[in-house]
């Protein structure tokens, strides 16, 4: 049995990257990656996607800007094997939406 494929991917390469669905359309940018402890490891549970990444991550005028949509994708809904081009693994309708 061959060893499972394994890649090392950098968080800092993923942050700010545009996530596309299979058709190529942009869904949003990765703004945050959430991880939880499972046993002795920390596993990624969610990706948080947003629209105008920079302004929102900096949250310059939090109170004045309209609360915008954050899209939450589970770890298995985005393929990050190629961190410069993350791709949805599911239809975009299955993603959760949340107002921040």
């Amino acid at each position, binding site marked *: 049995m061959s060893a499972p494929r*394994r890649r090392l*991917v950098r968080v*800092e390469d993923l942050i700010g990257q545009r996530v596309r669905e299979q058709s190529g359309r942009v869904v949003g940018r990765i703004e*945050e990656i959430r991880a939880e402890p499972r046993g002795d490891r*920390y596993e*990624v549970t969610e990706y948080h996607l947003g629209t105008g990444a920079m302004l929102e991550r900096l949250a310059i005028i939090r109170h004045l800007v309209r609360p915008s949509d954050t899209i939450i994708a589970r770890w298995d809904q985005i393929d*990050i094997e190629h961190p410069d081009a993350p791709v949805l693994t599911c239809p975009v309708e299955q993603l959760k939406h949340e107002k921040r």
Partner: protein
Amino acid sequence: MDLARDLLDVQLIDPRQRPIGRVDGILLDVRPGQPPSIAALEVGAITVLRRVHRPLARWVHGIVLRWLGVSWRPTRIRLEHWGRVGVDIEIKVGERAEQRLLRFERWLSTRIVRRLPGGTKGTKP
């Protein structure tokens, strides 16, 4: 925890509670069929330069390799022994990581600073 907000750029401390560096990069272990997990934290000049401009970082690394013959590899640290301190997460590094992170500091201190007058005085009052 939120990796970009809580873990990246966070302060690292040595076993003696002194600051020793910051988290410059985070490496994820990506296996098919499993959730990505944190493989290691990375500390290094090239790592941090990469975040500003990746081609520049590669170029600098190449120059250092070719002209100084030094492989300027970053230090990798496992995410364990961390705690929340106020607004920060502080991560304690092990002895071996501490050695690696302080190698420039130690070189500078022994080769140059301690040879100058006043360099070796005990902690000043």
